[in-house]
């Protein structure tokens, strides 16, 4: 039994060796499919892990108590006082910047924050038990040995491995060991970094801190920090107070200690503040102020970096693509199997005649497939791994720039992946081989020739219009990213079915138009009609790939166009300055500079939108609506300034304007009678033009340095007048601190909706003069660090799209700015063109991935086509022989066949164009709308579509040359087997 099986198997393998192309093709398909599968699996895994890590943050620096006056600092005794008074939720922190580099080499340097935290309170049960769902798994195993060292065991420890983490040696030596924590994402960003340098501030020398930090990877640490105990933070030359004497610690080593001290350089690092593990009420803050005798403030920042569903939809997209690739690969396998079994048929019959049972035969066939799987899956996986690691920088870039999310190099179980790939591939192979076998055995059984019951043109038309109608109806039900992608799949399948219906009809139609004077050509067309039913699978594969390709390219191109157009219009000034200088310095610039400059700063604040309602409703209804929305959490929006001068008006890109009357709207905007909101916000709130937004808690943005204060604004003062009168309960939430964000609060009426590509969050544009004009401090904090600069008076005709102002000289301006703002200020001056270029480069980089996948899909479709062609040529050998017998030259036969298939492709390509465009529309209006909350106009670019079609036809024709070249259109009677 086993022997028979082995013999059968070896004869099958011998057949494979005899005709190696089909098995190789199968293997190639398996490799391709697996490479895609593994790459997608890895990429998705990386995205998931990155997302998980990002959501996991143990210690957040969200709420920090600092002295209100930034010049005063907390002392150690202040901390003790507060804790002794029961403020045990406060934990002191101190920070200083350090750089990490590889062997101290400059180019690799990365700046991180060394964060000293009083870790003692965190050990307490209050934190331990409440803070973490799974507290100390090994409580019992812990012992006080942590407290003390046990050098006795050193020798035994030498052979232990190092866990994940890194060892960082300070540049001032490594005289004491410190354990630190580093967030996995921060760790992922570091490569060979092993040297720790204190940031060399000009004012103070680099302190003496000879530590060796063992940084363990833990998501407890905030990102971009190395968390150590504050005890270790203040060691060596790092002290809190100026007059701290350096105490010799151990008497018998006093000499050594003194030597060390001689080398010591001191640095005074003040306490940064107290982290509040739970946020404190005003009452608490007052209590703290009384205890410490200095005013304090609580900075609360919204540290939730909500990545939303973006990485999700990215993953979904990837899965969809890999699914597509898998389907196409299966087409190849199916075709190859068909071909292989077709050619093996005579031998199989012989085997049966030799008495080998059907069961053994099928087991042998499956074993053969398994052999192919086992050989090719590892190769595929290897390629997949390579592809994933090659792609990961690109993906990383995409994630950072697009989603504000992180991507980590995934850590996957190799064995599991292999098992998964093997099972999936083998099962689908078996299923597909069954299909071919059944097809084959059907061919072997004698059946009366079926009359082809072709559907009439009318019926086909009816079915098509029904299908299209259903598709349009289905589109209305799309309400989420997932359903949008499902709709994409539905669209592809439906269009595929329609193509299969229409292809015979179209080819038949063509037959009519071809004059009979050209018999060979006529034959080609007529035969194509026949072929069209046989090449279904190949045509499907080609069609889907091409449609997807056209759809994707059109979408990307539309996006690119929209972005470029939008950017070009929005960037109205010739220069943009990015600086950390305070606004008052910037504003004094314009008067000092040689050519008078007009400066428009960008001011930003934050607010929480709790909903929107139509303005002209009755009081009752307004109340109802606000009640409704109060259930959903408020969404935080950024409130940005927008200039009210003519350039601003010109630069304004609005999708939607009340009454389509830009001039009126602009006037209202400048008068503070309304605001513009971005699409994202409009979609999220379902806000319409003319609606009024309910905004509360307007405050200053969190800035990068932690010194910005949170100014809580009362809802009463800043919500629209309507709110005040209709919903008095909201007013009662007003807090005691008053805000000065606005000089004159605008009405929150939606005057227009503008596109804001690439933004994830809601944004509101408020006229610049509405912002506070008097309070210098507030203005500095409102200032986002970006200033638009153009020569004064603005030459209106020249501002947009004219390069004249470049002659003004970027270098001159930059030097001028530097000299006026001071050398130590960080300034970056960009010309409008440079900004545009950078943006578009980023954009193009982002879509590299899509391009790669597109081409792969097309290639696979081409291969599928070629294989099915080979099968067909075997089938049509008889007809070709007749042609040859009629005296048609071999070349002519080949050319005609080539033309035939190319024509078939061409027709399906023509059909793919409308579907591709429709697909692009769905991508933009449905997928993008739901995944990203913004849409952009669809721009159909003939060039893009034609290049897609051209490329695909090129691939197909190249692929076709292969089997056609081999083709011998004559029959060798000796080989003909009587079936």
């Amino acid at each position, binding site marked *: 039994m086993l022997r028979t099986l082995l013999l059968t198997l070896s004869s099958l393998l011998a057949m494979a060796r005899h005709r190696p192309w089909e098995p190789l093709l199968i293997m190639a398909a398996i490799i391709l499919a697996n490479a895609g599968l593994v790459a997608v699996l890895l990429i998705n895994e990386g995205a998931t892990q990155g997302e998980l890590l990002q959501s996991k943050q143990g210690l*957040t620096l*969200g709420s920090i108590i600092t002295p209100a006056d930034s010049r005063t600092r907390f002392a150690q005794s202040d901390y003790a006082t507060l804790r002794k008074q029961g403020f045990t939720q406060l934990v002191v922190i101190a920070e200083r910047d350090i750089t990490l580099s590889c062997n101290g080499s400059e180019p690799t340097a990365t700046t991180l924050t060394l964060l000293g935290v009083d870790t003692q309170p965190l050990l307490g049960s209050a934190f331990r038990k409440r803070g973490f769902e799974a507290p100390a798994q090994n409580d019992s195993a812990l012992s006080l*040995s942590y407290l003390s060292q*046990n050098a006795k065991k050193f020798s035994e420890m030498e052979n232990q491995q190092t866990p994940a983490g890194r060892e960082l040696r300070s540049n001032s030596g490594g*005289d004491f060991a410190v*354990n630190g924590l580093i967030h996995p994402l921060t760790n992922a960003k570091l490569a060979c970094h092993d040297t720790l340098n204190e940031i060399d501030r000009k004012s103070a020398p680099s302190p003496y801190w000879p530590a060796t930090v063992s940084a363990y990877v833990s998501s407890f640490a905030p990102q971009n920090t190395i968390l150590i105990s504050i005890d270790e933070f203040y060691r060596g030359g790092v002290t809190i107070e100026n007059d701290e004497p350096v105490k010799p*610690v151990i008497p018998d080593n006093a000499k050594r200690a003194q030597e060390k001290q001689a080398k010591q350089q001191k640095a005074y690092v003040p306490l940064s503040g107290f982290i509040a593990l*739970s946020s404190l009420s005003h009452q608490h803050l007052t209590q703290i102020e009384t205890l410490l005798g200095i005013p304090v403030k609580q900075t609360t920042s919204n540290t939730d970096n909500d990545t939303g569903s973006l990485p999700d939809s990215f993953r979904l997209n990837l899965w969809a693509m890999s699914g597509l690739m898998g389907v196409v690969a299966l087409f190849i396998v199916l075709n190859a199997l068909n071909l292989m079994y077709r050619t093996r048929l005579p031998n199989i019959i012989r085997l049966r005649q030799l008495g080998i049972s059907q069961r053994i035969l099928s087991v042998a066939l499956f074993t053969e497939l398994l052999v192919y799987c086992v050989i090719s899956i590892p190769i595929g996986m290897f390629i997949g791994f390579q592809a994933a690691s090659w792609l990961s920088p690109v993906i990383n870039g995409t994630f950072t720039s697009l989603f504000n999310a992180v991507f980590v190099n995934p850590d996957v179980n190799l064995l599991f992946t292999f098992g998964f790939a093997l099972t999936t591939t083998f099962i689908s192979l078996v299923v597909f081989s069954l299909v071919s076998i059944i097809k084959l055995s059907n061919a072997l059984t004698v059946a009366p020739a079926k009359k082809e019951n072709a559907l009439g043109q009318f019926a086909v038309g009816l079915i098509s219009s029904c299908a299209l109608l259903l598709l349009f109806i289905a589109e209305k039900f799309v309400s989420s990213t997932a359903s949008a992608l499902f709709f994409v799949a539905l669209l592809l399948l439906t269009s595929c079915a329609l193509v299969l219906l229409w292809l015979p009809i179209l080819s038949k139609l063509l037959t009519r138009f071809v004059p009979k004077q050209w018999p060979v050509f006529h034959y080609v067309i007529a035969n194509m009609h026949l072929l069209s039913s046989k090449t279904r699978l190949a045509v499907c594969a080609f069609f889907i790939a091409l449609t997807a390709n056209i759809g994707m390219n059109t979408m990307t191109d539309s996006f690119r166009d929209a972005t470029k157009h939008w950017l070009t219009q929005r960037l109205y000034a010739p220069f943009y300055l990015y600086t950390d200088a305070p606004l008052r310095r910037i504003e004094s610039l314009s008067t000092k500079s040689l050519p008078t400059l007009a400066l428009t700063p960008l001011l930003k604040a934050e607010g929480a939108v709790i909903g929107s309602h139509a303005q002209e409703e009755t009081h009752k209804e307004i109340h109802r609506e606000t009640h409704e929305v109060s259930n959903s959490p408020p969404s935080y929006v950024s409130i940005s300034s927008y200039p009210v001068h003519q350039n601003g008006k010109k630069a304004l890109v609005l999708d939607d304007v009340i009454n389509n009357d830009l001039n009126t709207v602009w006037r209202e905007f400048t008068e503070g009678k309304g605001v513009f909101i971005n699409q994202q916000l409009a979609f999220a709130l379902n806000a319409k033009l003319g609606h009024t937004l309910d905004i509360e808690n307007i405050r200053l943005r969190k800035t990068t340095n932690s010194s910005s204060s949170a100014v809580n604004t009362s809802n009463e003062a800043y919500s629209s007048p309507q709110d005040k009168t209709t919903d008095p309960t909201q007013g009662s939430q007003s807090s005691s601190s008053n805000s000065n964000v606005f000089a004159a609060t605008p009405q929150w009426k939606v005057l227009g909706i503008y596109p804001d590509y690439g933004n994830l969050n809601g944004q509101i544009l408020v006229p610049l003069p509405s912002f506070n004009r008097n309070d210098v401090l507030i203005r500095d904090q409102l200032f986002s660090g970006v200033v638009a600069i153009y020569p004064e008076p603005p030459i209106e005709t020249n501002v947009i799209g004219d390069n004249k102002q470049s002659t003004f000289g970027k270098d001159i301006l930059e030097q001028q700015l530097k000299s006026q703002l001071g050398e130590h200020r960080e300034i970056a001056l960009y010309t409008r063109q440079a900004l545009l270029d950078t943006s578009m480069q980023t954009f193009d980089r982002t879509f590299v991935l899509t391009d790669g996948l597109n081409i792969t899909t097309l290639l696979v479709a081409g291969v599928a086509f070629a294989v099915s062609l080979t099968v067909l040529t075997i089938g049509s050998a008889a007809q070709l022989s007749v042609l040859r017998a009629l005296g048609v030259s071999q070349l002519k036969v080949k050319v005609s066949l080539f033309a035939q298939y190319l024509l078939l492709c061409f027709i399906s390509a023509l059909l793919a164009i409308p579907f591709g465009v429709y697909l692009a529309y769905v991508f933009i209006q449905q997928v993008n709308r739901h995944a990203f909350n913004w849409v952009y106009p669809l721009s159909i670019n003939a060039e893009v579509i034609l290049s897609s079609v051209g490329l695909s036809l090129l691939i197909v024709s190249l692929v076709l040359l292969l089997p056609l070249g081999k083709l011998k259109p004559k029959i060798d009677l000796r080989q003909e087997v009587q079936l």
Partner: protein
Amino acid sequence: MTNQLRSTNTTFLRFKANIFLVLVAVCFTLNACTENPKDENETLGTSTPNGFFGNMQSSDAFTPVKRGNTVELPRDHMSHPDFQLEWWYLTFVLSAEDGQEFGLQYTLFRFNTELDAPQSTKANAENSAEVNANNHIAKNWSDGQQWMGHASLHTAEQHYFEERFASGGVGNAYVNQQPFTTVIDDWVWKAAQAEVQTGPESKAMFPSVLTFAFGQSSTHHPVKINGKIPATAADSLSELNDTPGLSAVKVSLNLDTYGPFIKQGDNGYSKKTQDERLRSYYYSQPFINAEGTLNIEGNSVKVAGKGWFDHEWTSHLANSEAMGWDWFSLHLDDGSKLMAFRMHAMNENMKNSTSKHSEIFTTASYIAENGAKEIIDQANVSITPTAYETINEGESARSAPTAWRIQIPEKDIDLSIRPFKESQWNNSLFPYYEGRVEIKGSHSGSGFMELTGY
């Protein structure tokens, strides 16, 4: 140095580096720690004590406990920072007017983490030199002492427990002499009078006031923020953490004494093994009257009862030879007091052998109503477990002997000790059993039992 780091790393390998443990390591391995890889006690559920302070290593760098150096009060109420380990231990058996019974504990521990450079190591001279160098890098934040506070209240149904840590030298954890004050954050025990008197019956420590608030409400449910259960630690912390006035239990007790301080052992020199290799300075105040209020989850209860104070400091207990102890402080109904313990120790031979048996040293102090102390030596006291309890606290189940028989024939004492309630387990960083017990037999009464190393 690398050795140190590597060995620290093993900690992580073994404990699979969960967040908390990593933290612990950061905080505790102030100068880098190493750990004995062999003596991890995986055998839970056995009745053999496994070492309370585990692998903490004693060292010659700390001041040793010497026979002849007697305890002197009130001087020795103070902290002894040169010793490795020290604790001030208060336990109370309290009753409310309505008959409710309580067991209350307040403990302050001090560990010296600074002087721990072992100079006796022979293993690697170069290493130890480097280790020593460690201590020459000035410490500008703390003084190298670490403080740990435990607070525990047992009602008939509930157990409230909280553990706190603080660095010494920062200002929120210390023991002061004048007036006598122990502080860790807002847990304060403070003498009512400032004058330091001389003489053995110093009242420097008493009368005093003990105030502390701790614990988490037992009826607490996860708070939903915006309709979702808080996802991150910080989220839940912000909801659950105690802001002033939010602790479940608030204690305010006035303490006074009605008898003398008792210097245990030989004038305060207390041996824990027969050969005295484990030893400490140890004195007690078993005659404490306590009255005051307990506020438990908003319900204020007036309570009164007896208290027991122990102060002990040593540099010889925190090592792998000290496997744990079964320790009793009992208030007998005739006014006398009994302190008794069984110390489980290991010697070098035992360590090398595979057997789990340890050397047991038993001793007791019988304190008559008038304060006269009598040491009962090992031959004349028998402390035997009579029943075991399986405790499912934390993740692991363990078995501990919670019922005992203590016999001192020459005093006609034959006591049967039963726990006040089940599972009086403090699930702290170094978990141990600390609970109120009820006494029957030749005498009745109540007291406290501490079981460590299980």
